[in-house]
């Protein structure tokens, strides 16, 4: 598996994502001005503040040459994972439905929390050998100021009916007031996934948890490699 991690000016978590991906295969950074994704099997749009995000989060990054390439890649069925700012970019680009608004608290919030992974037919979570606990509850940090997932009720209903809700905050752990505790969604085809929490910061037992690897593995399995 060859991973490409986008790098915009203002990206913050691209090196962390690169490190996480390199645990699962080969990985390289893709500069925001690159259009060529040849040889890349899966794309990560990482967290941070692309181009400063002084406008609306992700509103400028969606116009970058690299994102144009990602849109084509996704259209062809390639797996794409958007994390935090990457999720915002994917929503702005129209690759995912919904929007990410200012946290209910109006404050940036950084917290280790638990997510429930919601299966869809196209996504199977890997089961670690010998796991006795419910492996669908993932311990992953979230850290953002604009992460309140919002969509009109009709869209929320549709997302739920179509199996497009990918991750929910565990009961009582919604850090931002997201509608229906939604932490992450996928597109209809299932190959594009975005979530606010940071799986790339949960790949090392020393820094807290390794549950994030399951998120990467699930995305890799969801796409049809180009």
């Amino acid at each position, binding site marked *: 598996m060859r991973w490409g991690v986008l790098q915009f*000016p*203002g*990206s*913050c*978590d691209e*090196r*962390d994502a690169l*490190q996480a991906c390199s645990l699962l295969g080969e990985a390289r950074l893709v500069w925001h001005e690159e259009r060529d994704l040849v040889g890349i099997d899966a794309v990560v749009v990482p967290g*941070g*503040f692309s*181009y*400063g*995000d*002084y406008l609306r989060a992700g509103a400028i990054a969606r116009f970058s040459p690299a994102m144009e390439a990602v849109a084509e890649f996704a259209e062809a069925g390639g797996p794409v994972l958007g994390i935090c700012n990457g999720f915002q970019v994917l929503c702005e680009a129209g690759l995912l439905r919904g929007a990410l608004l200012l946290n209910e608290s109006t*404050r*940036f*919030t*950084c*917290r280790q929390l638990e997510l429930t992974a919601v299966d869809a037919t196209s996504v199977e979570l890997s089961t670690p050998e010998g796991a006795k606990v419910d492996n669908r509850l993932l311990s992953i*940090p979230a*850290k953002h*100021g604009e992460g309140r997932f919002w969509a009109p009720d009709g869209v929320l209903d549709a997302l739920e009916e179509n199996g497009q809700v990918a991750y929910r905050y565990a009961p009582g752990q919604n850090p931002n007031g997201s509608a229906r505790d939604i932490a992450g969604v996928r597109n209809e085809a299932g190959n594009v996934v975005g979530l606010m929490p*940071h799986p*790339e*910061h949960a*790949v*090392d037992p*020393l*820094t*807290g948890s390794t549950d994030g690897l399951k998120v990467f593995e699930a995305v890799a399995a969801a796409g049809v490699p180009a």
Partner: protein
Amino acid sequence: MTVEVAKHRELGLTDSEFELIVEKLGREPNDVELAMFSLLWSEHCAYKHSRKLLRRLPTEGERVVMGPGENAGAVDIGNGYAIAFKVESHNHPSAVEPFQGAATGVGGILRDVFALGARPIAILDSLRFGELDSVRSRHLLDGAVRGIGHYGNSIGVATVGGEIYFEAPYEHNCLVNAMCVGIAKQDDMVRAAAAGVGNAVVLMGATTGRDGIGGASVLASAELGDGDEAKRPTVQIGDPFEESKVLECCLELLEKGLLVSLQDLGAAGLTSSAGEMASAGGVGIDLDLARVPLREADMEPFEIMVSESQERMLGVVEPANVAEVLAVCEKWQTGSAEIGVVTDSGQVRVLHGEEVVGEMPVEALVDGCPLYDLSPAEPEGWIYGNRATLDPGASSGETLLALLASPSLASKRWAFEQYDSVVGSRTVRRPEAADAAVLQIPEAGNAIAVSIDGNGRRVACDPYAGTIEAVLECAQNLACVGAEPLGLTNCLNFGNPEKPMPAWQLDRSVSGLADACDALGVPVVGGNVSLYNEGPEGPIYPTPVVGMVGELPDARQACGSAFARAGDTIALLGPFSPSLAGSELAKLRGELDTGLPQPDVDAVAGACAAVRDAVRAGRLSSAHDISDGGLACALAESAIASGIGCRVDLQPLRERGCSPEDALFGEGAGGFLLSGDREALESLGATPIGNVGGTTVELAAGDRSFTVGVGTAESAWLSLRQRAEAVA
């Protein structure tokens, strides 16, 4: 002449300083030159009231890679890598405009660290405000916390620790000290000294505007008072996105070996960075202001020279490399302009196109400011006032809850949850998990621990002993995670040094800092001085803030402060003889007075070594230093963090001569609260005092014995959020 005199006074220069400038130049300075002198001869840049004292500090050690005088200090961490770090104040800007003041404080200290060629990996903050029941304090707290988060989160550097105290003397003049830690390949590091006659001087990063004009002299080197609102234009505006680009750009330039030297533009902007680079290198510099990219076309030469616009760096580049440097800047979409040249003239020459608008000997400008002796005088008794807030009839249990809820002691989760503590994938111990933050350093195959401490109230009680305690607390925090101190940075926040009382506090405090560092064998590798911290009601508590970096071989062994297992033995270690003098309880009772017990530094150093070795060997379940609020609060904190209670008998402390209250709530350096196997603790020489278990904190202390539920204690300890966000 009278007009001229008024002008230099307005800029903060004394008449005799002005006369000295005239003598050194052999003529009167023009407006550009006067503006430049006034900044470089300010306290903030010249350390004219503190430099003589700072010579007492030990600055050398085997592991020191860079010491004072560089943009930041650096210590060897092994395998060809160094850890760079420094703490700096942004107090007055934050008191005037807390969000931008704190944000640019973070931005400034980040630049100091990457100017060395180090990638910033951690930020810590030390904040002081007035009491939390003041609307102004809550406004400053909220703005400063949001500002720190805005900058640090946006640029992607983890904020891993810090401290916040609330005390009335900071009501008008809050303190915002930010510390940055970075990692560098020693081969890629550069110094700030300009070198190589004929080399180009390149200005990188943001454009130059009218913001922050006079920040160093008007704001940083004078007392706050009436009309502070009018000083808001002297506060700079931060742009973390620009800094992120210029950071990556500079690190790429250094990795490619394209820079001879690098310096950030901080206080006094181009004036200080060009002047200091030339001074350090023993060379001259010509600058052409017509080539400086401006935000506003009609800026005067003096404005360009003193602008404190943020996110700018000054590099010295060999002529053959200039084109490549400009290309890397272009790649990162950050500005760059060749604005000058290194000369052998020994002069800072300021041109605007063909016209020379200023010309001064580097020596006079940078090193010519007179250094002053202080006229210290010890005050008679306690001068800061007392305000009792605790019911005199409070029981011991009620007292514990009041201490845990006291804003200075209560959990700061509300604040640090607003900071990204995990970016960079290094944070092994996050805020509140342990006494010090722990970051893994895979490059060197080990880890570092970082702590920042300073209790101004105790320094006010006894500047010498209180400052020693601040150093010892840092060392103890490091010991709790198994780290050995490598170096120290400090920020000395004091009142007006021209007045006898703050002068005495500064003098005694620096002596304490020097003696503590000598005894521990920890070199001071950098720091910052912030004087004139006074409001209409007088000076702040004298507040030396100490930041320490230590090394530990294996991050997995770093102990937390939470109890780990029911059934563990709890024990005390170290020369701990607590008293209520200067304590949080004495504050709540309105019984503050001068005087502290003198700490036994050597004995504390011995205890630190014993704890460090035991933690590294994996022999302890938890380790926590006994600090604000005394042993009872330390026990409650370990219990709250684990959700497991404890049963403890304080008889061993009573046998050391402590009253029941001293044993419960007394403070003082040197105490460690440990838990683990009884045998392991006893072999360390620790004194068993109880056991971990149950759902209550149960303390036997003669007639002051009591029991408090862990949940009840936790509610008190977590009460800051609600109080910080109170509207009216």
